[in-house]
């Protein structure tokens, strides 16, 4: 009965949204803000990847909020799961193949992660994507050798300092120019690795913070006790 009502409701919702949204002119957006940003961003921010220019420049404050959300989620997960027990039941270590694979994969993923972070203002990619890859590297190591003691303290320091670095760069701009997170150091030569002012620095801070955050969450979940019999 309840299911039937839900089905009817969902059907109604779908119909309503479809009839309303099909009136919208998808494919030809008005682009009031978009086209203006496309016009001025290359000169103002100096990043070839305009998505990164907006992510760290025009809407950098959103990005800070997003880092805070990820941090809040990791912290809340920590609150919920508590500190993990050192003698908690763990998965058995992965087999020889997995361990060897992990030993090969780990440095590769780390390098790729940092490459993606460092080139975020030039090509697709950037802090978040690189951070996720770093977290994946960490996770591969965890998977291969669950018993390896993960330094939770180190993760805390990385996530704390990386987040602080983002904000301090912003406050530096506030002191230097009167605007929080204003672009500093000049746009530089478009297309070079060291260009786009403070953007690569922000990208690095994001990458490290996201990586540490996600790694922390995964470690928490992975180290939660396995269900006992």
């Amino acid at each position: 009965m309840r299911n039937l009502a839900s089905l009817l409701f969902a059907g109604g919702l779908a119909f309503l949204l479809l009839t309303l949204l099909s009136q919208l002119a998808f494919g030809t957006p008005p682009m009031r803000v978009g086209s203006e940003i496309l016009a001025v961003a290359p000169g103002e921010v100096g990043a070839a990847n305009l998505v990164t220019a907006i992510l760290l420049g025009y809407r950098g404050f959103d990005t800070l909020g997003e880092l805070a959300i990820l941090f809040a989620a990791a912290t809340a997960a920590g609150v919920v799961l508590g500190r993990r027990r050192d003698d908690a039941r763990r998965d058995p270590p992965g087999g020889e193949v997995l361990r060897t694979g992990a030993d090969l994969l780990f440095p590769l993923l780390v390098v790729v992660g940092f490459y993606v972070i460092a080139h975020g203002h030039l090509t697709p990619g950037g802090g978040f994507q690189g951070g996720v890859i770093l977290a994946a590297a960490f996770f591969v190591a965890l998977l291969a050798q669950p018993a390896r003691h993960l330094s939770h303290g180190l993760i805390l320091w990385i996530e704390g300092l990386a987040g602080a670095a983002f904000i301090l760069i912003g406050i530096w701009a506030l002191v230097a120019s009167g605007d929080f997170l204003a672009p500093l150091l000049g746009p530089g030569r478009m297309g070079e690795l060291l260009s786009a002012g403070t953007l690569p620095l922000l990208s690095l801070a994001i990458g490290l913070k996201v990586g540490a955050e996600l790694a922390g969450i995964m470690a928490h979940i992975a180290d939660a006790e396995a269900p006992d019999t």
Partner: protein
Amino acid sequence: MISDLAVPNLFVAQAGQLVLPVVLPLLAAFLMQPLARVSTALARGLGPLVLILCAWITAQLWIQLGDAPFTLAIGGFAPPLGILFYADGIALLFALAVPVFALLFWPGSESGGGAGADSRPGSDQADRDQAARRDALVLLLVAATTGLALSGDLFNLYVFYELAAVASFGLVALSGTGRAQVATFRYLMISAFGSVLALAGIAILYMQTGTLNLGQLAQLAPETLNNPIGSAAFALMLIGFGVKAELFPVNTWVPEVYAGAPARVSALLAGLVSKLAVLVIVRLLVLIFPQPEAAQMLLVLGVLGVLTGEFAAWRAKDFPRMLAFSSIGQLGIVFVAFSIGGEIGLLAGLAVALHHLIVKSALFGLAVRWNGSLEALAGAARTSPLGAALFVLFALSLVGVPPLPGFWAKLTVIVGLAERGTPLDITALMSILLVTAVEASYLFRVAIRLYQDNPDPVARHARRDLGVSALLGAVLVAATLGLRPVADVLGAGAAQLGDRAGYIETVFPSHVAGKD
């Protein structure tokens, strides 16, 4: 691009510093856990210190920059491109209230509680970690709610709303009982579903207008959003942002969460966070959706909230749940008030909202110790006479007994409804009068029970919680005595809040009308 190179000084009040009350708590929250590993005392003091600093900065800016609304472009990018903070009287008032209330209900110090952290066996390190996480989450909540008060960008509002949501999930789960975790999960699901709808609403708005800046949206709204599509977008965003504002269909999480969470967290959520969500909805209503359909939607949902909330409160068996349901009802009145529109509606809405902020926070402060069933409260007046007296004061104001501010707030709502006088308004008016009787019935039932004879009453209040409630009670009495100036200030705030043209003018001073 960079506006002012001449005054690179943090110690001179400039609009740019208005980001600090948002950013400093974030910075402190990020550093809280590592710091706690180094020095517990330092970590414990950091939170209150930062909150005091934030309140000081906001007050300083308010005094020096005056009453006229001002904006602040983050990153120095010209208005529609970057993210904008918009500070009018109401925004600054809330930005000031956030750190103050967070300080009043700061969960950290359990000095008066008798049994501190030492009452439980468990490793010190784990306790310290947990305390640092809790402090970090409160700071994140402060940053998020301050941002909600100030931000003038639709998506930025969404980001801060999500931050407030995620931080409050963590705080609600703090009490660690199984029930609280289940309640938190349900809360998370409802909240996340609301976010999906809000995102869909934002997508529709962006599709229609191509901007996210509230000022520019207000400019474009009459021609692009005064149609069914605009109303649908408003409905989606109303449901989305309504989750935290305890709006009718999406408030099913409220009783379980407030009953399961630590009482001080409930005080913050019911008092402060819900008001900021309301402020967001009001801004959207005033600036972007002035069409009558939007107000009607709000009115209907508000009336439903009033009725369901108050009747459920009447049936509630324990103190926190009663407060939670009553909170749903009161916020329903807030929505009804704001739906009236015009200066009187905004004034009424602000009055009810601020009144509820003070009263409900204080009552949840009392619930720190009175967290059991209503029956267990019998005779509590003997052990805690001041607590019982305060409860009676707040109950009287909540019901709306004449000299107290609650009466004037309710009266303004009723006058506003009667003035407009459509059948829907009269229905709303009738239901408000009806629930006033219901409110009186259940609140006085509790009051009578407090003064019953009972040889074995519940424990007395900790000095700190009682002090906070007494302080808020004093504020209430002061507002009663100085009703005229308070009403004048609120009236000015309401006028600014409702000033659509003023908002646009402040955001785009020289009529940089964009592309049209």
